[in-house]
């Protein structure tokens, strides 16, 4: 090995109020699979954005193939042989696969020629994808394939993958890893960003660990235990949530043949979902994003009421009721998207406390709002859930993701729900906040509430669920006791490898 493919020396990037990267150095050799490991907010995204030309470093140096490398824009990065697969896909829903790929290429050939190339690459790397399909109709895994193929067509020397497995079933993860190993064997370097330790131990040759914008260590994942890496990543050992023995109570929530049409062209319809939920029980619902999670939450919260007879709550038919009526009865929820769905970004925390607390917390009398009471409620949430903010007059958008999530979850938990439905409770939240949120959920169940936790984080679901089910194409699998369930079984419940019939192994 002579010179590394890419070397970073002392990269620093500061934003107002926060240093995203401080003195970061690392190097990647051709064909190496290099993991970039760190918590949310550790500076992984900023670092790869600098490599991809989306952000300019304040200081420091990048060298590529022994030459100075300072991409002014993604175009320059791509020209230098860097490809990137984003965590949130930069795709255009209403356009075809081929058009999407053409947009990401500098000298795109005619669409017909490009379609042929797409088919060829997808064949070679075991990533089936039809060039004519409209991207909005694809599953999350297929959408990722669009991004990957778009990169591969440029024959990159370095491929950056940002949290690629968060949208895949375990079976799909296996297939992706095969593709990546094949690429690596052909000499393509891969920078693999993740916080999933086992994955990194399976796939990666070397790892760089970031914490709070700084490099805190390098290691060889295959020779390092997951807990050692976790400790480097988090900086302290975290306490796993504790859970006392549970006794299942009466059935509080029953779904019978819950069906609902897709809310928009690219949404998912719910199909014949049935389940029973008992007091004190936590039902974990897994599944790849876009398989009906948002729609299920909307149906349960009352945001999109459903037909009569589909949802019974303590023996009452609540299908057609709206959110306020359901809240009054004790059925509360928290959607996935914090900013703009669970909370109104430009409004104060007091106003956001009013948003869902009005009915149950007595903040409203005959249509008139009691703002002092809402402020007190907001202060209680802030205090009990350790929300870091100047106070209840702060706008929701001024809070960090984790703090806002604590506020949103706290707002519902403090209203003492009998049934609580939550989607992605710890998505994009740092580890300590995530642990606090999980503990709050378990405490809620401990006190007799029934919980539906929808999440794409299987580790999280295994940690807190009593029973597990998975959403796939808007259908819910039969729930099974979470204890003793294997990863393969979970994967099959999630639909195995979506649209991968060719690659079935």
């Amino acid at each position, binding site marked *: 090995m002579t010179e590394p493919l890419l070397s970073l020396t002392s990269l620093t990037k500061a934003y107002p109020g926060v240093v995203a990267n401080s003195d970061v150095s690392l190097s990647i050799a051709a064909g190496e699979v290099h993991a970039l490991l760190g918590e949310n907010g550790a500076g992984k995204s900023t670092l790869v954005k600098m490599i991809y*030309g989306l952000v*300019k470093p304040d200081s420091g140096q990048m060298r590529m193939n022994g030459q100075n490398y300072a991409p002014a824009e993604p175009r320059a990065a791509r020209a230098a042989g860097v490809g990137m697969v984003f965590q949130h896909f930069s795709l255009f829903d209403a356009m075809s696969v081929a058009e999407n790929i053409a947009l990401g290429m500098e000298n795109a050939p005619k669409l017909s020629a490009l379609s042929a190339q797409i088919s060829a690459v997808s064949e070679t790397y075991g990533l089936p994808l039809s060039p004519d399909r409209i991207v909005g109709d694809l599953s999350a895994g297929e959408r990722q394939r669009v991004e990957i193929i778009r990169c591969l067509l440029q024959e990159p020397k370095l491929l950056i993958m940002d949290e690629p497995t968060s949208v895949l079933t375990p079976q799909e993860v296996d297939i992706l890893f095969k593709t990546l190993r094949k690429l690596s064997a052909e000499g393509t370097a891969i920078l693999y960003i993740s916080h999933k330790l086992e994955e990194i131990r399976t796939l990666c040759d070397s790892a760089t660990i970031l914490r709070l914008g700084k490099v805190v260590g390098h290691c060889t994942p295959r020779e390092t235990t997951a807990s050692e890496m976790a400790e480097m990543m988090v900086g302290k050992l975290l306490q796993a949530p504790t859970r006392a023995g549970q006794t299942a109570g009466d059935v509080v929530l029953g779904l019978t043949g819950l069906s609902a049409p897709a809310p928009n062209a690219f949404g998912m319809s719910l199909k014949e979902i049935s389940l029973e939920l008992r007091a004190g029980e936590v039902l974990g619902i897994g599944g790849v994003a876009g398989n009906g999670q948002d729609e299920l939450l909307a149906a349960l919260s009352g945001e999109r009421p459903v037909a009569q007879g589909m949802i019974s709550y303590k023996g009452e038919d609540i299908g057609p009721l*709206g959110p306020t009526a359901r809240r009054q009865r004790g059925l509360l929820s928290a959607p996935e998207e914090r900013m*703009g769905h*669970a*909370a109104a970004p430009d409004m104060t925390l007091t106003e956001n406390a009013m948003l869902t607390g009005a009915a149950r917390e007595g903040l409203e009398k005959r249509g*008139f709002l009691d*703002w002092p009471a809402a402020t007190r409620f907001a202060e209680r949430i802030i205090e009990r859930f350790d929300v870091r903010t100047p106070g209840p007059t702060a706008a929701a*958008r001024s809070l960090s993701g984790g703090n806002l999530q604590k506020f949103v979850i706290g707002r519902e938990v403090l209203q003492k729900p009998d049934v609580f439905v939550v989607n992605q409770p710890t998505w994009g939240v740092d580890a300590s906040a995530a642990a606090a949120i999980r503990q709050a959920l378990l405490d809620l169940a401990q006190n007799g509430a029934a919980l539906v936790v929808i999440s794409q984080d299987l580790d999280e679901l295994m940690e807190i669920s009593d029973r597990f089910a998975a959403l796939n194409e808007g259908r819910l699998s039969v729930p099974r006791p979470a204890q003793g369930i294997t990863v393969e079984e979970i994967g099959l419940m999630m639909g195995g490898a979506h649209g991968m019939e060719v690659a079935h192994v």
Partner: protein
Amino acid sequence: MIALVKRPEPSRVFSLAAPVLAVLATMVFGGLLFAILGKDPLLAIKTIFWEPVFGEFAFFYRPQLLIKGAPLVLIAIGLSLGFKAGIWNIGAEGQYIMGALFGAGVGLAFYPAESALIFPLMVLAGALGGWLWAMIPAILKVRFGTNEILVSLMLVYVAEQFLASMSLGLMRSPEGMGFPGSRNLQQYASAHNADLITGSGMHWGVVAAFIAVIFAYVLMARHRLGFAIRVTGDAPRAAAFSGVNPARLVLFCLGTSGLLAGLAGMFEVSGPAGQVTIDFNVGYGFTAIIVAFLGRLHPVGILLAGGLMALTYIGGDIAQSKLGLPAAAIQVFQGMLLFFLLAFDLFTNYRLRFGRAEVV
């Protein structure tokens, strides 16, 4: 290199400063425009902003302020509710016409009977007319998802034709010697919206405007419905999640703004205007859009903005007669005001950062 950085929280200072800055910038650029037109800019600005309130004939112009300001405030208050929620009624001009036609129609139907009940009935009819006209875009939006901007605007043209038809036909005064236009309601005691104190300009429309301001203030600050409007404007999905019914909100916002615009039209036709004529509407429904934005969609702000806009109307008239400033120049002046306001509004949510560009 200058970069825009989003503020963590909206700036309250700039939210208040933007309208003031906009007025100042409009004065500067408006003055420039007047200079280009060959008028003395300082004199023109002084004529527009000073003469009506403090000039030699202020005793004559001050009541005019109330007369011009009332319909603007009344309409703008209604519009602001919808605008705050992202529901765009820009057909207030049409609702204003329909309110006037309904109100005048009731009055004319009773002519020449005299009764204390006639005027209240006309008020109700005026409100109903405006409300009905606004319910057309509202129901179409709720039922079919039709764009309320286009529908409400198309209905302005329909209402204008309707107005023409009425003043030429059904409502034409039998004693008008064939000229278009209805009987003059000012000469029909039971239907006349007279000054409450003679010569003060204080007619029922002014009272209604003040009531509307108070009503809107309480609604927005203290009531669930006002909160629903604000949440919907900030985050529609959060509003739906919290239990706001978007369809009902559309009906309420469009309905209320139509009702208030209808009232404004009715008070105008039975008072200052006096009769239904082809050119009865003078664009209050459109100017009120500027008033609503200039007042930051806040009831008190709208009251102030309405006063200011009335001032430019009256001052513009004075400047027209004294300096020969074209009437259209005032329209341009008002349009500029909205431009500057929208531009300065940027600084409520963003601040400038001087230094290296950081985003490519």
